[in-house]
């Protein structure tokens, strides 16, 4: 990282030229960026290399790109990969939308109304998500069995059921996160709107929601990525393989170390990373620079 002004001649210290000033203040950031990109991306090069190698494996050895073949990518078509992509997108999107809406509503209530047990509930919500859920699969399974008898679409092997389970964690995980942000919107703005005769619902939807877009984007992203990567709950709930999400389906390719198909797995991963990247790029606009200047309580 010692790239600070390497080209600046010694005389420039006394009389900084425009160029060396540029190096000192801005220019050095480019070589550093290269380092960071190396740090971020070099492990992923192995994934790419494995995905292009028919007998690929992920054991990082040095023989990168020893063979280039798109066989693995073509082989994806022989699997249910694209079905899984569809399922994952549906489930992830539903989980994200639900998390954003329910979390925002709850955060608004906690931020704007004063009611009994408010602080207690807030701390409670935060602590709830620290529950170690490893043995909870028994309970989840039985619960869905019971629900499925009454409402078949909420039973085992239903995407809706999985979405509902994810929604169950929406409040615990997100209320606290959004609450702080809601607080940073000055309440004088609501007061003013109220005097203008706006109802609380109008204030929430028309005034507050647009102002908190960045945190909505963050929560949506987190919920989507969580649903995208989860395979513990999904594995219990989604039984038949045309209902699987990418995480379960692709994990099945490699779960048996004796027959692990790392090549096709890597190819799948490279493709599966695209939706998340696209989401990132889309939401980046809202997250970065989406906040109106001065809205943070000083």
């Amino acid at each position, binding site marked *: 990282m010692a790239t600070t002004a390497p080209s600046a001649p010694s005389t420039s210290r006394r009389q900084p030229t425009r160029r060396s000033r540029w190096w000192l203040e801005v220019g050095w950031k480019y070589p550093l960026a290269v380092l960071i990109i190396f740090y971020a991306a070099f492990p992923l090069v192995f994934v790419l290399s494995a995905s292009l190698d028919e007998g690929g494996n992920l054991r990082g050895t040095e023989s990168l790109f020893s063979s280039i073949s798109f066989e693995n990518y073509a082989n994806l078509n022989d699997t249910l990969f694209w079905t899984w992509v569809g399922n994952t997108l549906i489930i992830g999107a539903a989980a994200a939308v639900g998390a954003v809406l329910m979390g925002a509503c709850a955060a608004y209530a906690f931020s704007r109304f004063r009611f009994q047990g408010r602080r207690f509930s807030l701390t409670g919500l935060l602590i709830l998500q620290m529950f170690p859920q490893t043995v909870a699969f028994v309970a989840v399974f039985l619960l869905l069995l019971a629900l499925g008898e009454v409402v078949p679409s909420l039973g085992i092997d239903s995407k809706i059921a999985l979405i509902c389970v994810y929604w169950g964690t929406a409040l615990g995980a997100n209320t606290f996160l959004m609450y702080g942000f809601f607080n940073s919107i000055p309440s004088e703005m609501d007061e003013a709107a109220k005097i203008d005769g706006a109802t609380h619902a109008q204030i929430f939807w028309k005034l507050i929601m647009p102002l908190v877009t960045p945190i909505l984007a963050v929560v949506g992203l987190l919920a989507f990525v969580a649903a995208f990567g989860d395979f513990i709950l999904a594995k219990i709930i989604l039984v038949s393989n045309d209902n699987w999400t990418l995480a379960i389906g692709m994990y099945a390719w490699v779960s048996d170390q004796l027959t692990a198909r790392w090549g096709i797995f890597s190819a799948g991963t490279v493709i599966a990373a695209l939706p998340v990247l696209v989401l990132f790029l889309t939401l980046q606009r809202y997250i970065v620079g989406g906040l109106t200047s001065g809205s943070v309580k*000083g």
Partner: protein
Amino acid sequence: MSTETATPVTRPEAPARSWRGLGWGFLVKLLLMMIVNAVGLSIIMSAWAVEAWAVLAASALLLVAANWVYFARRTLPLKYIFPGLVFLLIFQVFVMGYTAYVATTNYGAGHNVDKGQAIDAALINAERRVEDSATYPLTVVRDGDTIGFAVTSASGAVQVGTEEEPLAAVDGATADGSGRPTEVPGWEVVSLNELLSDQALAQEVTQLRVPVSDEADEGSLRTREGSTAAVYRSSLTWDEEADALVDSDSGVTYTANEYGTFVGDDGSTLPVGYRVGIGAENFVKAVTDPDLAAPLLKVAAWTFAFAFLTVATSFLLGLFFALIYNDDRLKGKKTLRTLFILPYAFPAFLTALLWRGMLNAEFGVINDWFFFGANINWLGDPWLAKFSILFVNLWLSYPYWFLVCTGALQSLPSETTEAAKIDGAGRWRQFRSITFPLLMVSTAPLAIASFAFNFNNFTIIYMLTNGGPRFTDTSVPLGSTDILITAIYQISGVAGGRADYGLASALSIVVFVVVGIVSAIAFRQTKKLEEF
């Protein structure tokens, strides 16, 4: 969650506007509530139909609550919290409650089923085929409600018997080429076709035992697939009145003890038991067993350290990058940002496995490329393994913080920093006394949420080290990178070993209570929360 009456907030409404607002909002609300009620009622009705009383009661309660919340005047905050709360109650609170219930049972290996199923299994285990006995071609026959077996013996004679009546020859019966009786006088022949398509009948047939003779010892015929029969003998019988299993060969009577294990009067036990409530025993064991307590304390300490350090390091690195690259003079910022966040776009379990390969002491690229081929055992040494976990998790999570901090930095009011500049504050002071505190306001909740997430970050530990390297000074199979959630997973025996869901559930509850108390106290201490 009752509400305070005096919400000064709602009072000053201009009548005219509020009427209009109410009108629209009210219509939408009415429509939504009609849908909710319709769905709720249909759930209640179908719960009634399948006699699922618990579901019925819960959904009725929730439906009444929903109507109260959305039509009463004093429930304003609940109107916003209720939808999330419903899902929270059903899918999280119930799950926790059920885990607490499991913790009071001995559910696990050897106590996996309920009592009836355990007796079934014991009877299955005790029913053996009589050695060297023949297989008979079979046809199921019936006479009204009585089901019988018609078999053709080796000599070609057709015999019929029922549960009550031992096998006896019948005259005038015919059999097909394979030997299966086709016509039996006095009996109606049940075709395989009919047998297999009638689930209730098929179950009755699998349950049916036809004695070979009056001598019970000679065994009885049973069929598994409906077209052949063989002679079986069961040594065990279930005596319902005595609530005991009796072994007719050895004369031993097995009665269930308070742990749901069948113990014979000679002291032997049957392999299958059933699950029963054992009160607080699992909790006592979880807290007092020295084999568990000592390693679990170490694990707990590492869990807190891991969660805290992960958040701290990734936050600082993300912030550092954000500070550097939040610079309008830089070109191609968007591209750079996209490349910086790459690690976040790949599923964590994949990249954890990848790092596991790269950190291999002898063959991994980390040693080869960066340490001149030195044989550093990253995952095999307790401290290096801990370091590796933190390092990999840093790689996984700094992009998130980079993004969040960039957002937060851009939202800082520029006047404050401008003012500080004019005051002549140096960059470091500017950052420390103005930028950083402001940044913390919006990022502290995210940091706390991230802490809570990493506290239960099963994937990274499980995929990278699987908890190893193992503790050498204890007898439980835990290791120095295990965090609480992986330790409980290990103890639960899901992955292999002897399952003990009861104990694992009790540990979950104990850990949760302790963590809850610690966190509650910690939050109470934080001044930030005092402001709420």
